[in-house]
């Protein structure tokens, strides 16, 4: 009984917060419709208990019990330049505390090829409302309820975006008064269009909860390359829900590099809706201290001849913790599906922890599906072999752990991002740190 009361209080706190949020932001009718739908879904779902399917391995109790504030979007910051990748100087969307900042964003290089707007069109509103009806992730509902705007990015049919678009999510952070930020995006990639996007999450200091939701509508024959870099400070929560709809012969390739924090949760829901659609999801994390990264993935093969590949690698040291819960669902009729799923964990300490749940649900009879998970330590024979060639044990260990993680980093197509990850994510594996 006391549990129920406590739970109610937690949810009530967010409902109260929402009242203030609405008063301050005065959303238009389109946004209000989203908010209301999301909020009622939030009330139905409630915060996850420890046996909740989506959050079995993820302890969200502290997060749910935190009294967040919702920031006013006027906060001024500078010093974002160092987070903008070379080549994206004139093609970056900057979100400060969850809200698109028009003055910091620089769009000269993509103005002619990309249309960026707020949520206005009825079709878009309907799209979001339909997806909310089926939203089972309570935190995604929360993000929808608290978004100050929905940024719609549209690449027209046959549009070729010459430069990568960077989306930078900056949080100012405040440890004494943690804030919840809910950036909300809708990507509409037209027929035969091509776009490359780099999403980066950073914080000026600890004490915030970035709760991002994005929908991708990838039309026939289009191609998307999405790279995500999570590098928040330790005391920041980072949740994201990425929902992807892929049409005939379209491709969506993504790579996620997470350096972890007190809690990072990446949720991908991908629907291969028409023949020949293809998705690649890769991910790598390097965790130390008490850092955590959790991946929750659902891939729905809804049409024949679709391809899905997933490869996730985690290197976990100290008391780090990761989980991977991934299911590939092959619907009836989705013949000639080709689906792969592989998770590799390298455990470097006695106290680190990894949970893996690779799943296949197949309702078609002519498919090629494979899945697997490994949890291992540094291979002693490999270590010895390298030592017999004169490499010190420490150096050989570093080489082996680095090469383990590097294979995913190398799938990232932007040299600037790879260079950065070499100096940040992979740096965590250096001799003095292992």
């Amino acid at each position, binding site marked *: 009984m006391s549990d129920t009361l406590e739970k109610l209080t937690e949810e009530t706190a967010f409902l109260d917060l929402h009242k203030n949020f609405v008063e301050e932001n005065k959303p238009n009718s389109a946004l209000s419709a989203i908010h209301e739908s999301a909020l009622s879904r939030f009330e139905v779902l409630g915060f996850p208990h420890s046996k909740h399917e989506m959050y079995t391995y993820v302890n969200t109790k502290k997060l749910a019990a935190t009294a967040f504030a919702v920031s006013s979007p006027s906060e001024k910051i500078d010093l974002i330049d160092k987070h903008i990748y070379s080549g994206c100087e004139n093609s970056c969307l900057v979100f400060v505390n969850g809200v698109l900042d028009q003055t910091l964003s620089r769009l000269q290089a993509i103005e002619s090829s990309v249309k960026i707007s707020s949520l206005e069109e009825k079709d878009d509103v309907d799209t979001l409302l339909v997806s909310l009806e089926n939203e089972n992730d309570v935190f995604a509902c929360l993000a929808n309820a608290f978004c100050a705007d929905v940024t719609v990015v549209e690449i027209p049919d046959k549009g070729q975006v010459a430069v990568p678009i960077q989306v930078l999510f900056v949080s100012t952070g405040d440890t004494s008064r943690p804030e919840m930020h809910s950036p909300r995006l809708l990507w509409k990639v037209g027929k035969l269009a091509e776009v490359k996007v780099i999403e980066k999450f950073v914080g000026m200091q600890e004490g915030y909860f970035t709760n991002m939701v994005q929908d991708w509508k990838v039309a026939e024959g289009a191609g998307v390359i999405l790279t995500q870099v999570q590098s928040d400070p330790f005391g920041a929560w980072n949740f994201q829900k990425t929902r992807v709809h892929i049409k005939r012969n379209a491709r969506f390739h993504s790579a996620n590099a997470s350096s972890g924090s007190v809690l990072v949760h990446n949720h991908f829901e991908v629907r291969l809706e028409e023949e020949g659609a293809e998705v690649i999801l890769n991910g790598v994390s390097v965790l130390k201290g008490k850092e955590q990264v959790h991946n929750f993935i659902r891939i729905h093969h809804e049409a024949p001849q679709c391809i899905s590949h997933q490869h996730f690698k985690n290197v976990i040291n100290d008391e780090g913790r990761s989980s991977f819960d991934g299911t590939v669902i092959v619907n009836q009729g989705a013949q000639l599906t080709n689906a792969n799923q592989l998770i590799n964990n390298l455990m470097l300490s006695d106290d680190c922890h990894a949970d893996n749940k690779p799943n296949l649900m197949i309702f078609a009879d002519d498919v090629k599906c494979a899945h697997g998970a490994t949890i291992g330590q540094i291979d002693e024979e490999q270590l010895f072999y390298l030592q017999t*060639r004169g490499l010190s044990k420490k150096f050989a260990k570093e080489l082996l752990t680095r090469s383990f993680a590097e294979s995913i980093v190398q799938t990232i197509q932007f040299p600037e991002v790879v260079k950065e990850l070499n100096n940040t994510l992979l740096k965590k594996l250096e001799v003095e740190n292992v």
Partner: protein
Amino acid sequence: MLEIKDLHAGVDGSEIIKGISLSVNKGEIHAIMGPNGSGKSTLAKILSGHPAYETTAGKVTFDAKDLLEMDAEERSIAGVFMGFQYPVEVPGVNNAEFLRMAHNARRVSAGEEEIDPLDFDELLSEKMKTLGMEKKYKERNLNDGFSGGEKKKNEILQMAILEPKLAILDETDSGLDIDALRIVSEGVNKLRNNNNALILITHYQRLLDYIKPDFVHVLSKGKIIKSGDKSLALELESQGYDWITPVN
């Protein structure tokens, strides 16, 4: 150069080497032959410093230093090279980069500067050519997906890059077809000079047609039961090990 005195050693508490003494001098080639299970590979593991293998008695010195006190990497730096019977696959570590790191580890410990990457590439190309190795083996990961023959060639390539004083080749001939055996043997012969030494551990006499040993030792049940010159190897080839190994 290498002095083994009454060596007793084993793994997991069981004694496999039961008193081996052997002296190897500069410029010499020693072949250690013996039936399966005689302790040949255990001897190689002990000499290369494998952490799972344990010495229970005896002494091994290399250039007057206690070899058994040294870690595997220290032995390599000191000039001992071990050619593995089963070279380990290391996915994710580029072969050429690994070879350069190994080469540099040796140079740095000798107080020399690291080699210029372009110079090393030239050196590597030249050594690979003599071993008949295709260029693609530079780009590939260390032994990852190599055929048995290419793995053994890659071992000899490492030996060529590291220029050891003492090389111990453990069953380098096994798994090689006759052409690959000839190429590998020629590669080894090219690296030979009066200042280095070689220990060949092998089950078959075949290798010794290409690399001529000065001494042949027969190992059985953890002991050297007979030593001789290369004619001993021929006798073993024609008559097998039975005439020589103790029956119990």
